[in-house]
């Protein structure tokens, strides 16, 4: 076991590597645009400003993009986790015909170059009226996230003894009743972990959002960030400010679930 000074030294290196890019993002966002290039290399600008943040919030559609992203990510996280919990429970507790095939198909879905699916998905969603809508994004993101979320949920259910719900069923509960009353509370940490994985994945997805939506009512913030680039003058300050603002909800969500995440993974024991 390494010595405590080495231990803290190494942790300091990890902290620096993890946080310096985030510090840099923030630094660019608070630098006045005229100083961005003229001051050369500085760790902190001679003057700071909140103008980039203010402009992003008032002069752009960013507040709307922000809400769109929150709706899409939140709905995707909730629906995916619900579907994955049901499927994971099914894989964990039952032996049945076709189960192996379903699991293999789920694994294969992890191997698609997703770019390849854009054109076919676009063709399927168009007649359903699901392009350029938040609902369409939720449907696609949910499908992308369900396989991994299912494997994760299955590992949590595997960690909970079968006797628990059998006892509840002997006491006169239906299986579903036992699932809701006994198993659900025990899997809460696992559910929090899965929500976190799915939320962050949906929060940052760019490619499908770019292809499927175009009207401001449905554009998510990663696509919104791209609109800064397509303007004639690229405003890095505003872009970083928007990016930093967009990072905050994801970071808060992440902070809230990360305690459960480690506990949850431990309880569920991801042993492969």
């Amino acid at each position: 076991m390494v010595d405590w000074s080495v231990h803290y030294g190494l942790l300091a290196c990890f902290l620096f590597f993890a946080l310096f890019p985030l510090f840099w993002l923030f630094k660019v966002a608070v630098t006045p645009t005229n100083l961005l290039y003229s001051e050369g290399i500085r760790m902190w600008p001679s003057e700071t400003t909140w103008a980039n943040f203010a402009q992003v919030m008032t002069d752009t559609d960013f507040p709307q993009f922000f809400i769109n992203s929150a709706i899409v990510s939140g709905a995707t996280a909730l629906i995916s986790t619900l579907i994955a919990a049901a499927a994971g429970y099914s894989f964990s507790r039952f032996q049945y015909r076709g189960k192996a095939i379903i699991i293999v198909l789920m694994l294969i879905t992890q191997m698609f170059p997703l770019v390849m699916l854009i054109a076919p998905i676009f063709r399927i969603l168009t007649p359903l009226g699901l392009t350029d809508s938040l609902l369409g994004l939720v449907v696609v993101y949910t499908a992308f996230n369900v396989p991994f979320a299912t494997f994760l949920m299955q590992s949590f259910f595997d960690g909970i003894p079968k006797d628990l719900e059998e006892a509840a069923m002997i006491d006169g509960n239906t299986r579903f009743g036992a699932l809701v009353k006994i198993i659900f509370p025990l899997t809460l940490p696992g559910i929090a972990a899965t929500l976190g994985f799915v939320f962050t994945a949906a929060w940052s997805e760019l490619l499908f959002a770019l292809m499927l939506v175009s009207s401001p009512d449905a554009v998510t913030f990663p696509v919104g960030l791209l609109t800064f680039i397509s303007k004639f003058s690229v405003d890095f300050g505003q872009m970083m400010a928007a990016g930093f603002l967009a990072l905050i909800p994801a970071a808060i969500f992440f902070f809230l679930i990360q305690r459960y995440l480690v506990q949850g993974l431990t309880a569920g024991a991801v042993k492969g």
Partner: protein
Amino acid sequence: MTTATDLGAHPANRQGVTSRRFLSRLEPYFYASPAIVLLVTVMMVPLVVGLTYTVRDIRILNPFSGGYVGFAHFEAVWHDQNFHNALFNTFWWTVTSLFFQFFLGLTLALLLNRTFPGRRIIQSLVFLPWAVPAFLSGLNWAWMFNPVISPLPHWLFALGILSEPTNILSDPDLAMWGPIVANIWFGIPFFAITLLAALQSIPGEIYEAASIDGASRRQQFVSITLPFLAPTIAITLMLRTIWIANFADLIIVMTNGGPADSTQIVSSYIFTQAFRRLDFGYASAIAAVLLVLLLAYAVSIIFIRRSLLRET
């Protein structure tokens, strides 16, 4: 809700028993059905449609396209130097990113697997990059590699890693390291979280027994920790390899495949063919080749893992 007394009050006739048995056989399908329906409609059907594109001439904006071309796309892929280059780059990108993500993630997990003051806050902070959208981190890292405004190239120069404080993203020999570093930064938390969880599930008594028997820390790591971690390592390495090989966001944002195709990987090449050249037929053929390669990789990993599990 059905209770035991309800069951007693309604003595089951033969028909009731049969239908209840039938229903309980359907129950697992009932739980799995939403996932199955979603996967089939939103992923399997598009995949099959995408596979049909591989033998068709699908060029957006060309009204005369759409015809059957047989294996012409695959023949073209076979002779495509850009594809060979992208395949080599994919290998290099995936192996290097994965190597550093894994070993740094494992080191971080081992460091965090001890109780010490400040652990909670440090753990929260070092996991933060995982919450940053890949697209945003790509923009930020591209910005940080610029020597006019960022100290990073000057630090690398001072450390002797660069011979001049230049932008590595514009140097064909070094450009790939840009997206790789961004990818490592982004991906360490994934391994750290999953491996930390696996470490915490190892019963402490095993270590106590081993140290009573006089095993050194190193011996304990090799004979207890690593075998316990092995299954988690196998499954996470397999999934991450596939995800990284398919992960084009950072490359598209930071270098767009350049300079001189030096950072073009297969999935960014597919993106280029599909959205710059608007040739979906050819893009789908390349994607199908990548899918087959990844499948072959996954199958071999599953076999290796199975034989390893048999040994332990």
